[in-house]
């Protein structure tokens, strides 16, 4: 469960990026977040990741109250989330396998379990044959799937993707979206920020539309809003 209660976010130097967000997302939901450039979509994601702190209001994620979360607990909170970025952010000097395994090493997963789990996740994102390749040896779509596998590695309840298809070609984008929906069907909450009108319209999921730091539309089975 994710709950924004009148959340505002002001950056230093005065930009009000979010001006009072009320949003409830249940476990297992799939949500598109859309909006023009500068509407506050990335800011929303950063608040969820506790990369930025909310300026006022309340933000609850599962058992965590983010307005009260101490710095010390942040790493443990982040293990409940999986993140995917537009620019993949893989380690260029690690293989596909190592990139995924790294997320598990970081949290102290026993080697045995890592060896069992990584191939299974790579299978989920259709990358079974690529585990020994390096990021620069595979396509953008494949790199993004590695990032997705890494996001899944520690079995988080929530997957957050900020423009996951922004850097890859349309055919590959479709595959990434399909994977995100597949992951959603496996029971995970999936939040996807995107500009791709055709994909949003195609999938007919819940669509939350942002404009100038406010939610202007929130529809289940929605289309890309005309209001943004």
């Amino acid at each position, binding site marked *: 469960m994710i709950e924004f209660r009148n959340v505002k976010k002001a950056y230093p130097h005065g930009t009000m990026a979010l001006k009072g967000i009320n949003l409830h997302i249940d476990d297992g939901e799939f949500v598109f977040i859309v909006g023009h450039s500068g509407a506050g979509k990335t800011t929303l994601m950063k608040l969820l990741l506790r990369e930025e702190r909310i300026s006022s209001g309340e933000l609850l994620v599962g058992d965590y109250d983010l307005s009260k979360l101490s710095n010390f607990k942040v*790493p443990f909170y982040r293990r409940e989330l999986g993140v995917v970025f537009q620019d993949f952010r893989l380690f260029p000097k690690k293989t596909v396998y190592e990139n995924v395994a790294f997320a598990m*090493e*970081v949290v*102290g997963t026993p080697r045995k379990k890592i060896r069992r789990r990584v191939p299974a996740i790579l299978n989920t994102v259709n990358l079974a044959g690529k585990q020994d390749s390096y990021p620069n040896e595979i396509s953008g779509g494949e790199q993004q799937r590695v990032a997705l596998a*890494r996001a899944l590695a*520690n079995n988080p309840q929530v997957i957050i993707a900020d423009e996951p298809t922004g850097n890859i070609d349309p055919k590959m984008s479709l595959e990434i979206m399909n994977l995100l929906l597949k992951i959603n069907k496996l029971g995970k909450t999936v939040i996807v920020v995107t500009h791709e009108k055709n994909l949003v319209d195609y999938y007919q999921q819940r669509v939350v539309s942002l404009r100038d730091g406010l939610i202007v539309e929130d529809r289940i089975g929605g289309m890309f809003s005309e209001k943004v």
Partner: protein
Amino acid sequence: MRRYNIFYFIKEAFLSMVRNGVMTFASIAVLLSLLVVTGGFALLVVNIDKNLESIGVMKQIVVFCDRSASEEKVNEIYEKLIKLDNIEKDENGNVTGVVRVTKAEALQQMKEQSPGTYDDVTDENNPLYDEFDITYVDNAKVSELDYQIRQIDGIVKVNNRLELATSIENMKSGVMVIFVWFLVVLGVVSVFIIINTIKLSVFSRRNEISIMRYVGATGTFISLPFIIEGIIIGLVSSVIGYFIEMYVYSYVTKMVDSEIGQIISVYPFDDIKLYVLFGFLGVGIVTGIIGSVISLGRYLKQ
């Protein structure tokens, strides 16, 4: 943390040291200079100290008793003297620093030193005093001791080298002040350079660090490679520094021995090498850790 592999952290530390080769080199060079210069200074100080100590006369006071004092009175003075602080004692706590020399013994000594000269002086017309030769321990507290002795009834004269003792003490503390300044200034410079080296490592790995943070790495996990980097810088500097110090010190002491060996005695390096080694390791590693912890402040907090 117990499940993390320490070799992972060490490998990461070496990788960034190689990547920032120039800064790593600069850090090691500066820390090395700190250790060699202050180490050399410290060795100079202990050797000066050793030579001051060996001027035995420095630690003696001669106390003369009133010529009219009876045997009981002299014994009374003795009892008071051995109760004073700063008097030499043996390892069992028995006072060895108060030796009574009767006027007869004093006369005898003089007669032995210059036969024939004092033949007409007899025990009856002996003009000397009953005296106590006092050996004390701490030059720094000699004026206190001098004062206490003068308070004792029945003492007519106290001979000491108070001025010399004081000027030597002053010299020693002057040397200490310079030494501490060296240590502080070079220490600050070293920490500063190490901070910049580690900052550079952190900067060149900022992407990795941001990924680590997204997947839930703790501050400790993220910082450990950098702290190990600081430790390695300290370790390398102190080991190289040790060998340089050994070479320089042996060279200098050889010179001293051949030129003015009769006047000045120096510790052989073997006698002090463990102090040098562990001193260097301690200062080097602590400086390295301080440098990396300061530059990591932000990342430790998340």
